[in-house]
């Protein structure tokens, strides 16, 4: 599914745009514990959804080569986080949907989760 279609589906606000909003998103993960997310780093996660808002979320996405970060439940990252994401070329979205609903919408639209 194209990134721009994910934005529509989640009714998301784009805080940091991707260079190419048409880029294809195939695999995603959702986690509030960073090491849980990184347990799946061996596979390609193009998108990560999280309800956690701090600088280490951006760092984790950077290490995992996650292209798109989605903050759920309307959480808003602070300017330092947005700046770091920008510098690292990580697209940042924000949706008012809670974690379960956001993941469910994407899954229903064909985005896959992956085991290790």
């Amino acid at each position, binding site marked *: 599914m194209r990134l721009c279609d994910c934005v529509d589906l989640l009714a998301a606000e784009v805080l940091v745009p991707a260079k190419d909003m048409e880029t294809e998103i195939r695999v995603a993960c959702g986690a509030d*514990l960073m090491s849980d997310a990184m*347990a799946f780093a061996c596979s390609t996660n193009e998108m990560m959804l999280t309800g956690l808002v*701090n600088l280490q979320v951006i760092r984790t996405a950077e290490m995992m080569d996650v292209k798109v970060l989605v903050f759920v439940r309307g959480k808003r990252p602070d300017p330092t986080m947005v700046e770091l994401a920008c510098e690292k070329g990580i697209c940042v979205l924000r949706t008012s949907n809670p974690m379960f609903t956001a993941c469910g919408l994407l899954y229903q639209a064909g985005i896959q989760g992956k085991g290790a």
Partner: protein
Amino acid sequence: MLPVHLQFPIRGGDFHSAGEASSGMKKALSKLGVDPSAVKRASVAMYEAEINAVIHAGGGEADVEIFADRVSIVIRDHGPGIPDVGLAMQEGWSTAPDAAREMGFGAGMGLPNIQRNADDLTIDTRVGEGTALTILVRFHRPAPTAPGPEA
């Protein structure tokens, strides 16, 4: 040009600068043209070790050596040491304090993640003295800017 030797300080309890060492290493590997899957494995493993030094050990230092076919990462701290390494290596085992949990750590997955991503891991730890993790990650193909073994 190779090996490249990098050193980074790791500040204890500082959740703002945590990850800067790993980020610096990642940048260096990418610049050398190392294959992305090896870069990712090295970055995730080093970041977990760096965070552990920040959370559990009051900080320390990182020592990185990049060769044509591998990277060797040493994360050293002067913290409390790990009394039972076998237990610490188990998925889910964690003594992370609340401050770390609020930051999204404490799943007890860090050391298992390091093990999974490293081609070799050595844990040298002494209770009351500190811990040193040596992480080795091999590249699938030599860094293109480096002379290969046959060159």
